[in-house]
Every structure is written in C-alpha cells, then in structure tokens.
C-alpha cells in the first residue's frame, strides 16, 4: 500500500477530524439552539424573511460555503489579516456555518411543535422566562438533539469546504474526509475504504452519544 497516510499520521488525522468537527458542532449548538428558540418564541418584523433564509441555509452546498469563507479569509479578503486560511480554524468556521442553519431551523420547528397550551401552563405555575424556555427546550429535547445530530451529519461528511479553506495539508489540515479524496485520487481505494470505515465509526459513536443525551437532559430549573 503506497498511502500518503501512515502510522502516527493517521491518528493525527483522526484527532484533527474530532477537534475540527467537535468544535464546529459545539459552536453551532451554542449559537443555534438559543437562536432557534428566539425565532420560535418571538414575533418581530422581518421574522418570516429570516426564517426563509434559515431554511435556505439548511441546504447550503458545503463547497459554496468553502468558497465564501475562502474569499473572506484570503489575503485580499476582508478577514485576510487574521491569517486563518489553510488552518483548522478556517475549517471550523466553515463547518460551523454549514451546521448552524440546520441547528437553528430544526430547533425552531421542534419548539414550535410543543403544545402551545404548555407555555400558558408553565406561566400559570409561576415559571419565569428562563424557566419557561428551559422547560420547553426539555419538552422538545428529542427534536433539539435531532437538530444537533443533523448539524453533525452535515459537517462530518463534508469535504468541499474543508478542502477549499483547509487545503488538505499533511500534518496541518488533513482530516478524514479530505484524506479519503486524496487516497481515491491516488488509486489507493482499499485505504480510502478503511478511512471511510473510520469516518463512519466516528459518526456512529458521536450519534450514539447524542442519542443518549436525549434521555439525560436535566429539566429541573433550579432556583
């Protein structure tokens, strides 16, 4: 096997995949769940347009995101001074942008599906605003976790953005999906398949963890 990926380099690739995808997923969840809740519970002028944009964003082609982030971060771009292009940070940024609309849109719809009478009931029981939103998120937890799972699915497998803004540089920005592309181009199909199996295993493990979370989210509101 004349692979570009051998020995400890493989562990580096797996570690970087987990780091980039994990950070992007955490960022999209931290930003996306409150934004989805805000859109579900608040009415304001322009909300429908914003929701339409979120739904459009749920189908964003990763390569287009990669292109836009590339242009933003390139030396002549508005964020070129940051020096992020061809770094894991650029890949994390692109993947966060890919996952964010999925997390926002699916969180919003899962919260809107909660019985509207429950909001009145919670207020009648003396819930403050934070307790009310926490309880509603807890009621919609299956949908909220599904939103995060969908966000994860959108970024673990994407290759276009990672390739464009990361550059697939060995030892620096090579992740499992971009390594698979490289090995395939070199005709190393067997090794590419091994990397694919690793990617799938990683996705499976993360999904198992997220699904376990569905049953463990605490709901008591504290003081």
């Amino acid at each position, binding site marked *: 096997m004349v692979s570009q990926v051998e020995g400890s380099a493989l562990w580096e690739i797996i570690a970087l995949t987990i780091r980039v995808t994990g950070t992007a997923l955490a960022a999209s969840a931290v930003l996306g769940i409150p934004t989805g809740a805000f859109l579900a519970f608040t009415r304001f002028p322009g909300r429908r347009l914003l929701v339409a944009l979120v739904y459009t964003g749920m189908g964003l082609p990763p390569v287009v995101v990669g292109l836009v982030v590339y242009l933003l971060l390139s030396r002549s771009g508005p964020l070129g001074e940051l020096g992020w292009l061809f770094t894991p940070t650029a890949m994390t940024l692109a993947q966060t942008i890919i996952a964010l609309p999925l997390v926002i849109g699916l969180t919003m719809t899962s919260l809107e599906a909660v019985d509207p009478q429950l909001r*009145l009931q919670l207020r009648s*029981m003396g819930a403050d605003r934070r307790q009310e939103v926490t309880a509603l998120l807890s009621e919609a937890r299956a949908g909220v976790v599904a939103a995060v799972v969908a966000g994860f699915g959108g970024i673990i497998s994407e290759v276009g953005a990672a390739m464009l803004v990361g550059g697939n540089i060995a030892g620096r920005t090579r992740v499992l999906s971009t390594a698979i592309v490289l090995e395939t181009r070199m005709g190393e199909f067997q090794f590419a398949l091994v990397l694919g199996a690793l990617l799938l295993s990683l996705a499976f493990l993360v999904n198992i963890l997220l699904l376990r979370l569905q049953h463990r989210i605490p709901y008591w509101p504290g003081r």
Partner: protein
Amino acid sequence: MSDPVVELHGAEVTYAGRTVLTVDRLAVQEHEALVVVGPNGAGKSTLLRLMNFLEPPASGEILFCGERVRHPAPLNLRRRVTTVFQRPVLLHRTVFENVAYGLRLRGRDPAGVTWALLKRLDLEGLSGAQAAGLSGGESQRVALARALALDPEVLLLDEPTANLDPFNLGLVEAMIQELRAERRCTLVIVTHNVFQARRLADRVAMLHGGTLIEVAEAAPFFDRPRDPRAAAFVRGELVA
C-alpha cells in the same frame, strides 16, 4: 364580607378587533368559591386567563388585593395564583416529577408535599409512571395535584371535571371541598354542570356572549335567577 382578592374593573379583551369579554365589575372575595357558568364561547376561559395575569385586558384594569396589576405581572404576584386548565398539559416526565415541578421552580424541596398529594388524590401507585400514558381522569388529577402543591392563594379551575367518570369526578370534587373547608383557598371554578355549580358555589357569575349577565349568591341565583338566560341554565335547559 371579606376583602376582594381579585377585582376586574371595566376589563375588556379583544382578539383581532373583536371584543370577546367585557366585565364592568367583578370582585372575587377572599376564601369564597365563585362558580362561573355560561355556554361555550361566553368568555369563561378568557376570564380565567385575565385573573391569572396570563394576558392583559385591552382596556380596564385588574386589581390583586387592592393593587393594580400591570402587565406582565411580576413573578411574585404570578406565583400567588394558578390555574388548572380544562385540558391538562403535562410534562413528558413521571407523575411525581409533574406534581413536583412547580415546587422545583420555586427552589423548594418537593418530596413531602408531592407524596402527600399523590396519596390524597389516589395517585401514589402511579408516581413513577410516565404522564403520557395516563387516562384523562388520571391526567386531570395530576394537574390538580400539581396546582395544589403550590398552595396558591387563588386557584382557578377551568372545567376541572369535564369528561371525567364518576370516580374521578368524586375525587376531584372532594378535593375542591377540602380546599374550601381546610385550606380556605379562594376558588374560581368554571363549569357547565348546573349540579356541580350547586354543590360547589358560594356565589355564581353567569357569562353570556362575553358579558356578565348575573352575579349573585348561590341560593338566590338558583332559587330566584333574575335573568331569563340564568333561569334557563338553572332549569337545565340549553342556553345558546
């Protein structure tokens, strides 16, 4: 006569420009059981939402213990009143956690009160059951237990026994009677049932078409109703 707890003065509720409730004056006295009757669409549930500060009147004012209530009502005021809705909406948790929930909101240890209420409402055996699997009667009893756990000064009951079988109806009514006798809780009970109104009311208010058409002590309301629509209700006739 005791002091009024909740008062409505010139309160009007409108939805999309249509007036659904107008109350010139209504005062709920401390420790009384005020039963609100009237046909569907009369504004009974809207009245309860006003009294629970869940929505503001388009005009007029609401007073609680003599103080004008501004919307949104402050949390400490909202926590003195609670509602058992006609359709109980329970959390997707166990029966115990549903009853305990309001106490947890207040940062209080719920165990003692929750177990006592579960026992009182014959729900002890269901404490670990998921609320989603309960029958209508069991759900309504859980909703009542959840409200009672909060020990509210004013308890609003929106048709608490609608669609209940005699066993569950008996349990709920017994609990309401106990509230009146022992806890001296102020009650506002919405019902369609003239017999239930007779059993539970100190006073009766009848709503029709979004307007209060008669408010009276229970005995004169049932013995000598002034309004012909109230008289029809007392006779058990259909009031459209």
